[in-house]
């Protein structure tokens, strides 16, 4: 049995084309992700909003307003605006047109503050949120002013003490930021998890190739091996063990690359990640076994099937960018069963569970789902591979 294992290992490691998908592909794609996401997390992190302030006579007159704006623009931890001053509205408009600022803050002749921004650029883009922050800041001023005006009308005594008014309007931050999750949410890490999910499915190719060469009805080589004096069960177990070992090794290398070269955070649970990889590799082997053992289907078609299946399932695991990720999340929320039977998504979620949840229970659930799917696929494959004699070869 060890000889069969060794032989299968030797044969499979020499099929260089296998490593294109199982090894080169995830490494290449993660390198691409690395370049792609290098700025992504920074880009959506908060930066003071680039704001043009028209410091004309009207602005100087509206001291209450200008002091608020100046305060928001002061450098420090709670700086909200990055202010550039312009003498005239036209100059400020040029800066807006050139894209140097997000919006223009000015004061009208009647003393009312005014905001000018470029049109909606959609979604939760940095510029669009910058505009909305500016809008909110302006509203805060207008609303505070309105509050004082209404009090002045209804209950002028309440405003008798200017110090109290001053004090009432200045207050500390009403919120404090905490983290609910085991690690801080980072958008980009999930793409690497999805990538590992895809790589795991691609590893199915190893088992697929291996099983094709043990099946008497698929290759003459399989027939020759079936005639040998080593039992069918031993041959299969040894071959599949070799496929698993190779899948595991490939995924492990991809994981180490992502962890140490790309520098993706796995929340200090690398040991559990290796367990996840071992389970994912086992699933990949069972998937390959099933595809490989399908009778009357050419090898080319099987490769095509696996490629297509991997791409499709990865789409629903959110690999291909933000819209896909949103779609995958939506499916997970509204049709959790669909998400649970998508192995690419389950592998992705296994890593994700390790990263976000304090508890290891969700991870154990994902690993359990993968193992159940593995057992099912092996059981179905067994219907095809347990046969020793065939009606025709």
């Amino acid at each position: 049995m060890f000889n069969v294992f060794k032989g299968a290992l030797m044969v499979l490691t020499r099929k260089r084309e296998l490593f294109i998908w199982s090894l080169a592909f995830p490494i290449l794609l993660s390198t691409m992700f690395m370049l792609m996401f290098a700025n992504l997390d920074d880009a959506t992190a908060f930066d003071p909003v680039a704001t043009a302030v028209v410091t004309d006579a009207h602005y100087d007159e509206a001291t209450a307003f200008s002091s608020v704006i100046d305060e928001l623009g002061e450098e420090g931890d709670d700086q909200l605006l990055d202010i550039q001053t312009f003498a005239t509205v036209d100059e400020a408009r040029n800066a807006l047109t050139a894209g140097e600022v997000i919006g223009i803050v000015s004061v009208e002749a009647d003393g009312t503050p005014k905001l000018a921004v470029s049109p909606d650029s959609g979604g939760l883009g940095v510029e669009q949120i910058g505009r909305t922050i500016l809008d909110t800041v302006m509203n805060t001023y207008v609303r505070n002013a309105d509050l004082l005006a209404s009090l002045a009308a209804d209950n002028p005594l309440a405003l008798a003490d200017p110090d109290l008014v001053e004090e009432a309007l200045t207050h500390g931050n009403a919120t404090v930021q905490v983290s609910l999750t085991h690690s801080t949410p980072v958008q980009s890490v999930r793409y690497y998890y999805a990538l590992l999910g895809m790589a795991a499915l691609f590893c199915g190719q190893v088992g697929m190739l291996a099983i094709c060469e043990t099946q008497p009805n698929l290759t003459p080589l399989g027939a020759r091996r079936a005639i040998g004096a080593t039992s069918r069960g031993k041959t299969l177990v040894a071959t599949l063990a070799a496929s698993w070992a190779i899948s595991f090794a490939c995924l492990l290398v991809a994981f180490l690359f992502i962890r140490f070269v790309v520098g993706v955070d796995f929340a200090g649970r690398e040991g559990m990640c290796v367990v996840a990889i071992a389970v994912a590799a086992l699933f990949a082997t069972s998937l390959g076994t099933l595809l490989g053992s399908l009778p009357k289907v050419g090898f080319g078609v099987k490769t095509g099937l696996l490629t297509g299946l991997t791409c499709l399932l990865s789409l629903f695991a959110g690999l291909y960018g933000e819209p896909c990720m949103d779609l995958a999340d939506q499916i997970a929320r509204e049709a959790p069963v669909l998400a649970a039977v998508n192995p690419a998504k389950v592998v992705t979620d296994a890593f994700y569970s390790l990263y976000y949840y304090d508890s290891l229970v969700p991870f154990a659930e994902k690993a359990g789902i993968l193992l159940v799917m593995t057992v099912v696929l092996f059981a179905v494959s067994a219907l095809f591979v347990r046969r020793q004699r065939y009606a025709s070869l």
Partner: protein
Amino acid sequence: MHIVDVNNLVKRYKEVVALDHFDLHIEPGEVFGLLGPNGSGKTTAINCILQLLTYDKGEIKLFGEKMTPTRYDLKRKIGIVPQNVAVFEELTVRENIDYFCALYVEDKQKRRSLVDEAIEFVGLEDYTKFRPRKLSGGLLRRLNIACGIAHKPELIFFDEPTVAVDPQSRNSILEGILRLNREGSTVVYTSHYMEEVEEICTRIMIMDQGHALATGTNDELKAMIGTGERIRVEVNALDDALLGTVRALPNVLGATFDGTALEAACTNGTHNVSDVLGVLATAGVATGRIYAEPPTLNDVFLEITGKALRD
């Protein structure tokens, strides 16, 4: 005891009956030839015996015991050289032989010497580190053989091992088979080349369309048929009357004229050639080259089935 004992084997591929109540009995120490045209059921028979194919009816015993897919003790004593080259593209010559040998022999030390012997046996010493892709057709066939015989099986099946092989490699393969036989192995050899079968087999079965037509030694088979001698005389022209005279000769079974030569099949006799030539000489027909041959297995096949082996 028969080493191979097949009784009443029936194998159907949907409508086609590939083996029709097929019997096969092989004695230890034989080189047994299965001769028949392509599609006659030779490979199907072997695949059934080796339990690669299901069959509809019949009984298969090897070494006196019933053969099933899990009789690994029996499989251990069998070697197969399949019709299609079945080796790992990824493994070298030596690794391939070692791999297949390991399916039979666990002991590493023992296997090393067996592999060495097999390499020497097929003459691949200079190519042990080559991958199959780098081997020529003949060398690849030899590797295919080495993988099947390295574990010194008692019973070896050679399924058309000489297809698409150059004459030199072919001769060395046939010599090798005889050598294995001398060293104690029983050989089952299938081919559609009657010359090869005639050359090496101690007993021969002629097959066609799933039937065993005749079994026996080379001489026994030839003795079964009427033809004892085939005479061919090149002549320019021959009229029907003269052809009738030739046919009327007592020892002549039949005669034909194809425009260039007269061909007559005769029973065994001592003066068949002179009888035929006498008729021609009397009629004043000029003769060219003259051939007289003992019958071949093709004649046997022709007489039984009414068609030539080589279609």
